[in-house]
């Protein structure tokens, strides 16, 4: 009787139920499909778009979608870590502007030949802004990261305006422009960048202790402290990472426009947060996945792209985008209920 992990009433993992074999197999298939989760949702939306607009599925347009979603996706990957710790980073949009402007100025004024240095510079400036956010929150014992990151939202925009004098700085090094616009075949480099970043974040979250600590802090901050997780350090690190992602997004934005300009990234934080939440993460912390986040960013990108392809006027775009977001998430709610339902039915089947 010292069974430890007997799944009460559950079937042995290999045998898919004994009773109604056929039905059970159907269930199994349905369950597999439903378990695709957010990806299923994305496929659905893509299908709708493809039906409405014939050019939607052209490789070139898909490249466009990827390119357009890439900035939000990069920000969202950083935001994901922050949100898993039950935090929020409102500053990312402004940090795009600040880091691209500072890096661009630095390169221009020092007259550096090796223009690629602008790339690490942007990431660095972004990381610095994130370090300030995290330190103010953690060491300054502010009650919620909303406050320091809102302050950074303002300060970074101000700094961007100040150091640039309000003027855009046009002309980026080749390397930056390549990241922003070059394609390998129809695949934009920026999309590959997102993919690489996603793999890194995914590995950290799922395979590395640090990532587990991030989930632990979001699940039970005081508990994490008690079991000896370096809560402060981990918390600061996610803000630094989010800032670095903003710096990376700055590279893409600068490359896309061949310039740095002080109003860049305006309101991007909202899209990034929306992507993460649409992707199934919780504002209360402890939950969220890389796949979900990417899907969230792509859902926003696909809907926007579809509306543009259909030349929907901007006032209608607001209405349509808002409605589409709600419908998308509502569908996911239904999907996950269906999943639970199917699983219960399957358990039932296998018992009888």
């Amino acid at each position: 009787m010292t069974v430890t992990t007997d799944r009460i009433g559950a079937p042995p993992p290999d045998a898919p139920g004994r009773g109604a074999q056929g039905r059970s197999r159907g269930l199994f298939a349905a369950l597999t499909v439903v378990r695709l989760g957010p990806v299923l949702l994305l496929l659905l939306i893509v299908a709708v778009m493809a039906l409405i607009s014939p050019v939607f599925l052209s490789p070139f347009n898909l490249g466009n979608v990827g390119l357009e979603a890439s900035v939000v996706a990069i920000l969202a990957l950083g935001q994901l870590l922050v949100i898993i710790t039950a935090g929020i980073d409102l500053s990312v949009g402004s940090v795009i502007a600040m880091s691209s402007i500072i890096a661009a100025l630095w390169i221009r004024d020092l007259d550096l030949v090796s223009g690629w240095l602008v790339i690490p510079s942007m990431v660095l400036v972004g990381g610095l802004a994130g370090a300030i956010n995290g330190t103010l929150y953690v060491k300054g014992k502010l009650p919620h990261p909303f406050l320091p990151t809102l302050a950074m939202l303002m300060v970074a925009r101000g700094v961007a305006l100040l150091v640039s004098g309000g003027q855009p700085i046009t002309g980026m090094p080749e390397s930056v422009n390549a990241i922003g616009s070059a394609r390998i075949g129809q695949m934009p480099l920026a999309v590959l960048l997102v993919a690489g970043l996603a793999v890194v974040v995914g590995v950290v979250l799922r395979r590395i202790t640090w990532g587990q600590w991030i989930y632990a802090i979001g699940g039970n901050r005081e508990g994490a402290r008690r079991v000896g997780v370096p809560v402060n350090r981990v918390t600061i690190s996610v803000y630094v990472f989010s800032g670095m992602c903003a710096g990376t997004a700055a590279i893409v934005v600068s490359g896309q426009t061949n310039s740095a300009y002080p109003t860049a990234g305006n309101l991007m934080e909202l899209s990034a947060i929306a992507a993460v939440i649409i992707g199934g993460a919780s504002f209360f912390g402890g939950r969220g996945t890389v796949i979900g986040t990417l899907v969230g960013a792509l859902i926003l990108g696909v809907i926007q792209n579809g509306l543009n392809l259909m030349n929907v006027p901007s006032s209608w775009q607001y209405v349509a985008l808002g409605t589409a977001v709600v419908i998308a998430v509502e569908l996911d709610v239904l999907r996950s209920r269906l999943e639970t339902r199917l699983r219960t039915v399957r358990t039932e089947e296998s018992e009888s």
Partner: protein
Amino acid sequence: MTAPIEPAGAAGGAPVLEIRGAVKRFGAVTALAGVDLTVGHRQVVGLLGDNGAGKSTLIKAITGVHQLDEGKILLDGREVTVDAPTTARAHGIEAVYQDLALFDNLDVVTNLYLGHELTRPRGLRGLGWLDRRAMQRDAQERLEKLQVHLPDLRGHVGLMSGGQRQAIAVARACAFASRILILDEPTAALGVRETRNVLDTVRRLPEDHDISVILISHNMDHVVQVCDDAVVMRQGRVVGTAVPSPETVEDIVGMIVGAKEGAGQKGRSA
């Protein structure tokens, strides 16, 4: 505070842990009003007392969750500052808290190993690769010892029953304590068999792993079964000590409820 309070739990081996004059205030509430406590080597000390007596506060001060306003903590005779849970853990102190401190969003194995993750390569703390397989194997073994039924080791702890949750917390602390194990009502939610297993474990631990145990419990039977010494608190003070046995139970209960006061007795203050 001038009443003579005998050092509690002085029996059994050299003292591993000593608390002297511990005071802890929360705003207008004085949770600890000058507590002395001594835990000997390989000793199991029962910490008893009414609800709100200050037991949990005392052990939280030992594990660095709270900082004492006054008083000293000595480990192996040397004064230490336990300013954070990490410090306590570095000293080999592990605890099961009354409110458990589990991670509802994580699975059983992760909960068991959080902060003690097995990684490859072993040394790297935060940056190591998680060795899930090793942790899974090990977790299975430990939980079997307590004979807890868990539906799935990969299930989220948030969905588990009260007793399952407590068992996980106990298994966790027992696994990692290397000097002092602190158990704050560890069997409150456990079933008959699971309780028996935990008490067995507690009884064997001092010898098997060379550690001392502080056990908080409201169950006199349990205290008599496993404790070498019993310290009774009331309203933030130690009001008496006794060696628990079927004969002294009556006395101890008397001290707890205040009907009868023991060794270091003292009238109610303010």
